[in-house]
């Protein structure tokens, strides 16, 4: 028997502190007036969070608004760095926290595919190879040579999503963006996630929809006030979380 593959991501005792100043902090005057005293309160957005994400799993993060899910996701995506603890990833990480970040309004959809794709870490070779697939998936073929500022918000989001889903990382970090486009597009996205999973890739997602979480995820972690409450199979975590929400009412 072969040993199980190493976990895709190891989150080890991660904590992150936001420093809240009484006054706005980014002008010279306030810094000078404050002098050596620093008037601030610490706010622990993440407090000693540890868990492992198994390779090939779809892993959900649940919790109330402001619980620290998005902060954790940003740490996983290497956008921000925790003050304590560490996050180790085995493989290439790509994140989808916002679709169409870095689109240039005046450039065409096609030009933006190359721009946005390279921001997300794709090479020109990969992009050229996948260009047709991306355009087809987005369903904006007719407008692909128009500047994206003329796109409807749906088209904009669909194009952004099509690029991101084609990055083809080992680990994909996704924020609540599955609710994009119409029903048909959402079905296509769900299909894409299934393919992703079948290829042995890992997905970590934040969602507030317990339905899609139970449907898509096999593992989940529940976070509240920056602390890990429970981690385990998606069904058990969702059940415990829902029970606490009902209690709260």
């Amino acid at each position, binding site marked *: 028997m072969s040993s199980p593959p190493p976990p895709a991501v190891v989150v080890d005792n991660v904590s992150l502190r936001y420093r809240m100043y009484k006054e706005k902090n980014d*002008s010279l005057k306030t810094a000078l007036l404050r002098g050596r005293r620093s008037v601030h309160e610490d706010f622990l957005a993440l407090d000693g969070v540890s868990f492992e994400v198994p390779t090939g799993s779809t892993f959900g993060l649940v919790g109330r608004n402001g619980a620290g899910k998005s902060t954790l996701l940003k740490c996983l995506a*290497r956008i921000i760095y925790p003050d304590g603890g560490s996050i180790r990833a085995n493989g290439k990480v790509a994140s989808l926290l916002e679709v169409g970040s870095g689109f240039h309004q005046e450039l065409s959809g096609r030009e933006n595919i190359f721009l946005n794709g390279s921001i997300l870490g794709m090479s020109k070779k990969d992009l050229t190879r996948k260009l047709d697939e991306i355009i087809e998936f987005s369903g904006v073929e007719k407008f692909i040579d128009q500047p994206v500022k003329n796109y409807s918000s749906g088209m904009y989001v669909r194009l952004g999503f099509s690029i991101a889903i084609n990055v083809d990382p080992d680990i994909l970090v996704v924020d609540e963006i599955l609710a994009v486009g119409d029903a048909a597009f959402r079905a296509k996205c769900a299909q894409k996630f299934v393919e992703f999973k079948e290829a042995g890739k890992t997905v970590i997602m934040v969602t507030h929809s317990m339905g899609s979480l139970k449907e898509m995820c096999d593992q989940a972690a529940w976070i509240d006030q920056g602390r890990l409450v429970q981690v385990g199979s998606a069904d058990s975590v969702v059940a415990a979380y829902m029970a606490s929400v009902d209690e709260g009412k």
Partner: protein
Amino acid sequence: MTYLRELYASRELLSNLVMREVKGKYRRTFFGQLWSLFNPLATMLVYTVVFSVIFRARPSVGDPSGTDIYALWLMCGLLPWLFFNRVVSGGLASITGNANLIKKVYFPRMNLPFAVTGSTGFTWLNEMALLAVVLMLFGSFVLPWIPLVLAFMALLALFATGLGMMLAVLTVFFRDAQHFTAIALQMWMYLTPIIYPITLVEDAADKYGDWLLTVYRLNPMERFVTVFRQLMYDNRWPDLIDTAWCVGWAFGVFAIGFLIFKRFENRLARLL
């Protein structure tokens, strides 16, 4: 080392960011890229009328080229200055201006100030090419000096990028930096012999003491402007001391800017 390797691996992103600036800037304008030439031409016209026609400033005659045209003499110093100015102020705004991107996607952040240098450099190359053609029409045979001109353009780009990176980080902490820099750059231009010849300062130094000239020449841009004039207007080898200063300033300032930026890079998303 891993840091440099990752930076190098993102070179396609850099070229795409440069393209975004270059292509996006003049979209939907009739003259397109030509606008980037109109701007320095208009500046040249204004300065030539004011300083050459009204104030009767005389440039030194090019030695050995023999060129004696104020507008061309001006442009040999003004074009490098305008490039420097745009890279510093653009680099300064490159982090705060892309806050949305930085907070949503991971990529080596240094590509943002580098992209400013790249797109501005593209414009500058066009301007310098046009200037070289005009210089040759008016008797300054600049052709053999072009490799050296390109080398000094690269040095100036390093210098400006380094300064831009320092200011970009400073601006994240103190938004005052951008307004301060705008004023400082304006004063800096008049402290550099761009629209007036350095002989005026030498005359003043004769009167008030040599320290005046020594202090005046601590300005890195004075060295760069002098070298560009020696190469393009005079058609002679740049002064060795000036060259050494240019190399020193370029690598020194770039290295400091690079290290400062690298040190704060991971914190940028949280500070914005």
